[in-house]
């Protein structure tokens, strides 16, 4: 099991500075979407809109190993009535303007900038009301990503690109890339912080290997689930950290094996000093 950091962006001009900063390469096997990657980082150029963002999240989740731990960061430009152009902000609430659905990203570590509510529109909108950011991807991104990760690991980070319709008209690819590029290192640092949090708090359980037992006896799916739980408990409470090889000689079936291992576990007290995981 490993942690994957996934950057979802709408535009190539938003992606360019991130590709440079994260030193990503084009994934030639990807179909239907432009995907860039390196080691445990993926970047998808999704296209504009919440459906495109949702599709990009689904694509990554569906093509990576099922047991991967995913961190999802949506990066892009957004509008705001008053925030200075070029400033960085993170969403603490995402409202889908069309459906009214509301999402709350959870902050489990310090964030690199101020946070604001973010309203997601189906079409370009320049009636910037209240102190909210406005974009076209965040609700689809968040709704889909939260199927694959817990909400502490899903964030929308926005660079304020415009305060009015006039500003939007002046935006060019170069300006967008420059605006995102200024904050690429900050995004990278935040992604690293989330990865650290995931690695330290979502660690998989240790367990004894099952291969030898599965090869010797036939275990049903239910029995395999029971066996995995036994293997986890065994690794935690048995000091030798090995299966009791001799004892299996008397086992004639998978049921015997499970029964025997359970009986052994029920005779094994926990040692408190070894239970200091925090």
């Amino acid at each position, binding site marked *: 099991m490993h942690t994957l950091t996934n950057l979802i962006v709408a535009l190539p001009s938003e992606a360019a500075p991130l590709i440079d900063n994260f030193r990503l390469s084009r994934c030639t096997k990807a179909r239907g979407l432009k995907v860039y990657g390196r080691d445990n980082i993926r970047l998808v150029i999704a296209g504009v809109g919440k459906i495109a963002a949702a599709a990009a999240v689904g694509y990554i989740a569906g093509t990576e190993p099922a047991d991967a731990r995913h961190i999802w960061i949506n990066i892009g430009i957004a509008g705001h009535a008053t925030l200075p152009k070029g400033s960085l902000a993170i969403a*603490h*609430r995402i409202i889908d303007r069309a459906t009214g659905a*509301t999402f*709350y990203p*959870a*902050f*489990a*570590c*310090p964030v690199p900038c*101020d*946070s604001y*509510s973010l309203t997601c529109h189906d079409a370009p909108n320049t009636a910037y009301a209240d102190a909210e950011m406005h974009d076209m991807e965040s609700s689809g991104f968040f709704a889909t990503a*939260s*199927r694959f*990760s*817990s*909400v*502490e*690991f899903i964030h929308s980070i926005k660079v304020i690109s415009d305060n009015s319709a006039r500003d939007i008209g002046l935006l060019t690819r170069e300006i967008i890339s420059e605006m995102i590029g200024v904050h690429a290192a900050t995004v990278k640092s935040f992604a690293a912080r989330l990865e650290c*949090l995931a690695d330290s*708090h*979502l*660690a*998989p*359980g*240790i367990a004894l290997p099952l291969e030898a037992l599965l090869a010797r006896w036939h275990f049903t799916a239910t029995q395999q689930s029971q066996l995995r739980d036994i293997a*986890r*408990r065994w690794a*935690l*409470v048995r000091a030798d950290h090995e299966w009791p090889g001799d004892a299996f000689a008397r086992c004639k079936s998978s049921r015997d094996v499970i029964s025997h291992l359970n009986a052994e*576990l*029920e*005779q*094994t*007290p*926990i*040692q*408190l*000093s*070894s*239970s*200091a*995981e*925090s």
Partner: protein
Amino acid sequence: MIDTIYVEAAITGHPRALSIIHRFPKARVIECTSYQEVFNRRQQNFRVQKTHPALILAHKSKPRLHPVPEGQHLGATHNYYFSHLLNCPFDCRYCFLQGMFASANYVLFVNYEDFVTEIADVCATHSGPVHLFSGYDCDSLALEPLSNFAAHFVAALAEIDNAVLELRTKSTQIRSLLKTSPNPGTIVAMSLAPESVAANLEHGAPPLGERLRAMRRVQDHGFKVGLRFDPIIPISDAASVFRHFFAQVFAEINSSSVHSVTLGGFRLPKAFAKRMVRLYPNEALFAGPRDELNGTLIYRGDVGDNTVAIARNELARYISADKILLQHSVDQPEIPPQDAHPQ
């Protein structure tokens, strides 16, 4: 340090909410429709949130009082619990809240006056003492500087003749109690465990010595105190550990004026245990021998030993049997319902 506060739109103008928000000028304040859309949603990780919990300010609607499950009281006929707060700043690995709640964020219900009114109404329907437990879904005192819960409720319930309030805690936040006139309708109950258990499993909670000194001060001030040894964690060498532990406890606490003592085995509803194992797959505490009874897992100690029975025997050196109440143990098969085990 709280850096995120969610507040229900309906209570943004509530004086208690405003006062709390004012205490955290740097916190981001996020309006929500109902606390449940933040607290009860799926796809949250309790363990991750525990590192950085947010505060949710909310309004608690009726019913605010709930009957206490069988076997979870102090011997009174009428027993209720209520929760002004959900969750706790301490991170006790055995705590059932990890399995019960989807979120580790604190939910503080600010409409204290509605709780008091409902308590008064319920107490009026009973002629005898009504025991009211405030520490089932939280630690009663741990967030006192923020909540002013004890300061408000101890005084308010003193006006209700037959109300008996139990404040259950592991914290040393007793300042507001020491400023309050003690009254016979309040029991300050401290949850205690041997030092080795506290050090290994009660992350963030004050050490045993500090808890005992706090309890002593509360006792000296004139409040009734209770001692809660629940859960008793199955440990090796239990007799020796508990002999030393109770000697420490009663060197500080005057046993003759202790109101009540409860003991309970380490047990978890199976569904909660499953979630807790998922959160902490490498925690040996959940991997030890256990029995299953009516959907509850009861964790045993060393083979042939019953840690609860050993603890009870050692406790009997200091406390008369009639003051010791068993909440549940292996040799006491009555199982409380799954949603209300005291900490």
